[in-house]
């Protein structure tokens, strides 16, 4: 066993080395590439700075994340509701499960041209795309949770003559919550994919729109800058998702 400080130093060196390696690789490859293929990190950051200064990036973030927020929000609400319904109403579950699973398995991106044709291109159609991308994880996770409530806990509830309302309040909902949150975490990630897809394939604005127009103008620096922003957004959302999930599952800590 190494002493504590040495292990910590080594860990820090690892992380620092990772960052340095990435930065150096980016910079070196960038400086040896044709500008329409790849550019340096510094050029990318410079471009990022100017996109912030001239307001295009903030505007794009607002555009994209208002779609994202609406889509994910509705998906979470309807997903939870649908999940509970499917879990508790057997007829619905038996009847619709195969179609839901089928739709869940379908690469939904292929439906985008149809959504475009049917609903158009503005705000709400994009919300529909985000919604479709992230409703299923919530729905299925909620259903799985509500359907798998530990038998023993249900027995406890019945033994003590709990009312229907008490069973929901004290058993089903608390038990399902962590499952639901796992679905929410997945939804946060998938919603981002839906958001970018909607931006690229429906009306091209927001972050995806920036990507498209950067591509139109052969501006690799701008594309990389946008990708960087999207990555940071993704990491932040994943972190938030994991925190929320962990918080609601804290009692699940088991031996």
């Amino acid at each position: 066993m190494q002493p504590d400080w040495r292990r910590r130093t080594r860990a820090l060196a690892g992380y620092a080395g990772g960052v340095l390696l990435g930065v150096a690789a980016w910079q070196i490859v960038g400086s040896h590439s044709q500008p329409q293929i790849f550019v340096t990190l510094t050029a990318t950051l410079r471009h990022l700075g100017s996109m912030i200064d001239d307001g295009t990036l903030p505007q794009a973030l607002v555009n994209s994340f208002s779609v994202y927020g609406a889509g994910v929000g509705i998906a979470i609400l309807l997903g939870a509701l649908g999940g509970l319904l499917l879990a508790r109403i057997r007829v619905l579950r038996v009847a619709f499960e195969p179609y839901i699973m089928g739709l869940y398995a379908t690469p939904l991106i292929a439906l985008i041209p149809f959504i475009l044709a049917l609903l158009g291109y503005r705000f709400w159609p994009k919300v529909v795309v985000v919604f479709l991308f992230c409703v299923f994880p919530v729905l299925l996770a909620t259903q799985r949770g509500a359907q798998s409530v530990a038998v023993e806990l249900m027995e406890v509830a019945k033994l003590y003559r709990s009312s229907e309302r008490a069973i929901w309040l004290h058993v089903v909902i608390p038990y399902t919550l962590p499952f639901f949150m796992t679905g929410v975490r997945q939804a946060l990630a998938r919603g981002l994919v839906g958001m970018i897809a909607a931006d690229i394939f429906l009306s091209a604005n927001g972050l995806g729109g920036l990507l498209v127009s950067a591509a139109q103008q052969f501006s690799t620096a701008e594309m990389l800058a946008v990708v960087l922003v999207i990555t940071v957004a993704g990491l932040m959302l994943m972190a938030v998702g994991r925190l929320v999930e962990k918080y609601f599952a804290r009692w699940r800590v088991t031996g």
Partner: protein
Amino acid sequence: MSSGVETLRSTPVRGDDEWAAAGAGPWWCRPAVLRIAAGVLILAVWQFVVGSWAPHYVARPIGVVRDLPKVLTDNVFYHDLGSTLFAVIVGLLIALVGGSLLGLVVGRLSDVQRVLGMYVSGLYAMPIIALVPLITVWFGYSATTRLVVIVIEAGLPIVYSVAEGARAVPVMHIEVSRLYRAPWWRVWGGVVLPAAVPYVLAGVDLAIGRALIGAVAAEFIAAVHGLGYYVLSHVNSFKEDQAFVAVLALALLAVLLRAAVNGATRRWLRWYRQSG
């Protein structure tokens, strides 16, 4: 029970015997009947809504059925289907091998984890679709781009999941192999790898869906021939009914690929399904 609505108070907690006793209930309660009814309902609503409010070229069930023979006798369709299927399978195989190796290394060697972990997380957190325009610049408007996109899309969940699995190898199993003085390669091949297999499968399950998304996105953006291209070109020519057949083919592909993985698991990895 005949209403189908289960109040919690009245539902038996251990339902299996009541399920068995109740059998399938009245004939209209049989699963097959319910499913067909639901399918018909979905199609009817779709037909009605689209028929009443949408432009005439928007896909609708009757049109899709009408165009089905046309598509199924179209060589271009099979060419595109084969192209996408081939790319997805090759991409998944590359992702499986490469992702598993990378995942094992990242999961077991903490130094590697520290250096590479952030890049794996970063890529995993971002929608790969945002990278497609760049990958197109780097690898061309070609099937190579599609393959690269598929490999990245499919590889990341595998790396992620396998790394988690490699970290979670029960200490006991490692100790058994150390105790019996197994050489290092037996520890990796005989203990770490098999212990990570369930995680590989979990990763592959995610990877299939993502691989198809990647394939379609690449075909849309880089105009590579395949089912996505088939969809796009037909929608843009106001032939949505034909395009929708390709969507159905994509869905079928996803379901079949997952079923194949499940089947393989059931067949060859019974120990994992039972002890999971």
